[in-house]
């Protein structure tokens, strides 16, 4: 499979209440981890093209908190915060995440970094705990192929464009 350093992120929905983001980077995982956990480095990428970072706080220890704030291009402020729950430097980072505009909908994020030949595969699994998603689970009684369904839906949606 062809790999480029500026590939697009891939977003899949492995289960009803999960989102998985994957991306490969042309750098060893120590550097990806560093860029992910150092405030002044996070400030350089986190807003993407959607705004300007105004504040990054990271207290990188289990039980420590983080808070990221950006001013969106449209002028409003967007803030997230959470707590670090598990830290394996350069490999794995588990933290809660709350979008301050929707404080009831907390998620649990797991960052996983794996390295091969100097390149890093980054995965972020977002596990939602909001009632809406949870109810979906309870009702379904099974956790089967959301991804297959999404693929099918995507085929259909694309074909109808």
């Amino acid at each position, binding site marked *: 499979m062809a790999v480029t*350093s*500026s590939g*697009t*992120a*891939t*977003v899949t*929905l492995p289960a*009803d209440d999960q*989102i998985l*983001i994957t*991306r490969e*980077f*042309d*750098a060893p995982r*120590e*550097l*990806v981890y*560093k*860029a*992910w956990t150092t405030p002044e*480095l996070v400030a*350089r*990428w*986190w*807003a*993407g*093209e*959607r705004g300007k970072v105004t504040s990054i706080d990271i207290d990188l220890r289990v039980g420590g908190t983080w808070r*990221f704030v950006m001013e969106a291009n449209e002028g409003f402020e*967007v803030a*997230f915060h959470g707590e670090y729950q598990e830290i394996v430097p350069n490999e794995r*980072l588990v*933290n809660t*995440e709350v*979008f301050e*505009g*929707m404080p009831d*909908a907390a998620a649990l*994020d797991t*960052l996983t970094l794996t390295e091969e030949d100097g390149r890093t595969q980054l995965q*972020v699994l*977002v596990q*939602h705990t909001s009632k*809406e998603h949870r109810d*979906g689970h309870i*009702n*379904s009684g*099974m956790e*089967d192929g*959301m991804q*297959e*369904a*999404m693929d099918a*839906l*995507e085929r*259909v*949606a*694309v*074909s*109808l464009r």
Partner: protein
Amino acid sequence: MMLSVARAATTADAFNAVAEPRRRAILDALSDGERPVNDLVHALGMAQPQVSKHLRVLREVGAVEVREEGRQRLYRLNGHALKPIHDWVKNYEQSWSERFVQLDAVLEDLKQKEQGDGSDE
């Protein structure tokens, strides 16, 4: 980390319609083409009232359309109704892609710094 996935929660939208796995199974079955109810009942191994109930929900959000042909009611997928889901995922993916392009630049700088120093910082 930092993933805004906010969207309005309403009972009759495409997101809720596909939140139920059996409804997704119906959509999958219909993605190959138009089918009568009995065909779906057979293919999915569900009771007919159950299939009808799910078809009703899918019709409410426009994900499935029906037409009469003789004594049969034929159901078909309407991908347009599912486009909000596709768009939502794509928009989300796009925002992460933008973010990661910036992260690429940060990593390039870090790599050069390391080479320049000849040591880890």
